[in-house]
Structures are given as C-alpha cells and as structure tokens.
C-alpha cells in the first residue's frame, strides 16, 4: 500500500461571480473506505465532489493526486445528482464509456448486458434512455460509472427518488464496488444509508468542513453543535 493519500485537497476554495461557494477546504482521502458527505442543502457537497473530480476549477489552493493527473482522471467516475443520459438507447449509454477506450462493440455489449441484468433493466436495452423512469435512470447512471471499474467513484445522492427496493439494489452495487477496491465518496441526505455504508463522514456546512471523523465517532458523538442538530433532524442555520 502506498503511504501517500491517493487524493488530497489543499486549502482549496471555489468562487463563482465573487461569491465563495466552498472552502477553504483541507482534506486527505485515504486509499480504503467509503466516505459519506453530509450537510444541509446548499452546504457545498456537490461542489466539493465536483472540485475533487476536476469539474470545478479551484479559485485558490489545489487538488492533488498520487497518480499523474491524466491517469488519475481516467480512473475516476462520477454519478451526478441529476443523471445525464446520452440521447441513445439504454445499451448505447452503457457501452459508451467502454467504446471510448477502444473496447470492441460486441465485447462492450456483452459486458453491458451483464450490468443491465444486475440493475434490473434486462429487456430494456433497446429502449431510449430518455424514456426510462427517474429511478431507472439513476441506476443506469451508476452502472455506466461502474462499468470501467473506477478506482475512485464520486456519487452525488445516487438514491434520491428511489424506492426501497431500488435503494437496496444500489447499495448492494456500491458495496460490491467497494469490496473490489473502488474508493467511494458519496453525498447523501439519507442518514440510515449513511450509517449502513460509511466508514468515514465529512460534515459540511456553509462551504466549510466542520467535522471529519470515522463513522462510528461521528454518529455516536458528534463534536460540533451543527452536526448534533443535523443528526437530530433540527434546522441547521
């Protein structure tokens, strides 16, 4: 195991139109585990994930990877809060990341069909992805992110809008990925889910990380008053 963290955020902030949305943030993501990012709406969870994935440019500080930059990005995947579907069939959406990297079409389709099976969308392969339900789209987006077995996976509320059974499907996929070596960072509002999956927790409020702890210590003895209030379901101001 390498000793340097695969990903570290150093004094980074994100500013838009003169308004600071995030930061400054300092953070080290260690090689193993599943980090859950919690915080009220507008706290900056999505912004933080996007910053780490390179979708937002830091206006100060920086994001560093152990691997060379291009290689690091090639081994990441992101599932957006509102899933982006390509205007293609379900199968076309799933094979897209594979064919981008030179996998033969027949091969890519074979893999895609296996994934369709495991997300319960078998039989939908020739349907347009835009015609899927919201929850089906989220499952498809997750499968599309996992199909190239990324080392680092960012999930931005992957279970919003999902029913219980679908949530369970997704959690199963997430845990499978984790067990095969994928490092996962995930934002969620579902505290039950956070308890089930997290090894570490980041608590974000008003663009700052106010608490960073192991899951056990965060849920049992939150240190900041905001986190305590948040866990009780009170309003965080």
């Amino acid at each position: 195991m390498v000793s340097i963290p695969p990903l570290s955020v150093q004094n980074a902030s994100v500013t838009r139109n003169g308004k600071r949305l995030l930061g400054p943030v300092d953070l080290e993501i260690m090689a193993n585990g599943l980090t859950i990012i919690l915080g009220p709406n507008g706290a900056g969870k999505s912004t933080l994930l996007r910053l780490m994935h390179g979708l937002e440019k830091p206006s100060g500080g920086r994001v560093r990877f152990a691997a060379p930059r291009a290689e690091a990005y090639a081994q990441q995947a992101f599932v957006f809060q509102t899933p982006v579907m390509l205007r293609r069939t379900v199968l076309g959406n799933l094979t897209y990341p594979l064919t981008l990297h030179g996998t033969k079409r027949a091969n890519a389709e074979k893999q895609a069909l296996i994934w369709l099976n495991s997300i319960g969308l078998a039989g939908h392969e020739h349907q347009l992805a835009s015609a899927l339900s919201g929850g089906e789209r989220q499952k498809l987006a997750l499968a599309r992110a996992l199909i190239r077995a990324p080392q680092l996976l960012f999930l931005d509320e992957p279970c919003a809008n999902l029913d219980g059974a679908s949530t369970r499907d997704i959690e199963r996929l997430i845990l499978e990925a984790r067990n095969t070596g994928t490092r996962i960072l995930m934002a969620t509002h579902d505290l039950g889910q956070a308890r089930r999956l997290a090894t570490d927790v980041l608590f974000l409020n008003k663009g700052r990380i106010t608490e960073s702890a192991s899951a056990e210590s965060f849920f049992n003895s939150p240190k900041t008053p905001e986190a305590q209030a948040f866990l009780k379901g009170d309003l965080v101001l």
Partner: protein
Amino acid sequence: MLEIWQGIQAAFWLIVTFDADLYEIAARSLFVTCSAVAIAALVGLPLGAWLAVSRYRFRRFVIAMLNALMGLPPVVVGLVVYLMLSRSGPFGVMGLLFTPWAMIIAQVIILTPLIASIAHQSIRDLWAEYHDLLISLNTTRSQRIKTLLWDSRRALLTAALAGFGRGIGEVGAIMIVGGNIDHVTRVMTTAIALETSKGDFALAIGLGFVLIGLAIAVNLALHVLSGTEVRDRW
C-alpha cells in the same frame, strides 16, 4: 393570376411528357446543390461542433461573424468567386469558370456558414446537457465532437436541409459563376430567371412549381430514410 394557373398546367405537362430539358436541368440542380450541401456539411458540422465545445478568445465575435455570414448576399459571393476563378484571377488556370464546379464552389461558400451556424446552435444546447458527463468520462475534444455530432444528428439533418433549401433556390451566385449555359450550367433557378426575363411567366412559374416539388421530394425522402418523425421519438 392567369399565369399561375397556366404555370400549374405547364409544370404538369413538362413532367408528364418527360420533357428532356426539364429533367436535365432538374438533375443538374440536384447535382450542384447536393454536392455543395455535402461539402458544406462536411466542413460546417464539425466546425459548428468545434465552436460549441471550444473556449477561445473572441468566441462571441466568431459566432456573431458566423451568424452574420448566414446572410451573405449570393450575388456578392458569386462576384467574388467569379473574380477568383476568372482567367485573370488567382485560380484562373484551373479553368473552372462557367462549369458546374464553379457553381458548387460558390454554393459551398454560401451554405457553410448557414449549416455551421445552425449546427452550432443545436450542438451548443446538447453540449450544455452533456458537458459534465463528457468531461467526467475524460473524453478528448475529438471524441466530444464526434459524440455531439452523432447524438444531434437529427438536428443536423435539419441544418443540412436548411442548406439544401437555400442552395436549390439560389440564383444570384450560380448565374454569375455558371453563366447559365444551355446544357452545361443551366439549372432550375437560372432557367426560371431566363424565362422571366423573356416575359414567359407561365413557363417560369411552371418551372417554379417543379422546383418546389423537387425540394419537397428531397426533404421527404431524407426524413423517410433517416427514420425521423415516426413513432414517439424526438
């Protein structure tokens, strides 16, 4: 008004009697405009996509220019192409003036900004939708352009058809660089201009109806071939 009725009759008889001249100029019109559209699309579609996905200085200026060029007056294009291809011009030695190739060149210049601009507009919208995903998937710029072109192909078909519509009805440029030579460079529009100048309005309108019919036929054929506007697809 009488001429319009006579024009419909003229169009009918020209078609049903398989008038050889009519079929020849109609085929030449199609050849010139389809070639020009094909070349303009080959240049304009990737250009439109490239403009949509690239960040560069003077971006707004370039796009404003492109939109302005959509309104290029064909006569001016014709004149410039004439001066280029004239024996006294820089490309005179190629001997292209007064050939269908000169007409294609002029139309490519007229159609490329139009096709690129329409393509840019629809690809820009799709790019806004795809931006985060394609960046996240670590695509190269050419992969992005290819994906956007493929996934907006129906909108791009519309761009090409808009180009076809402008080209098939264009007369100012091809008259100057083609010369409207009988059996060599005469096409539907220049024939219509000629009959109008002779005061033979009925025949001119008849040819006009055939031209409209031709445009409709091409549009329908392309839509059927590409399978758009069927079932519940967008």
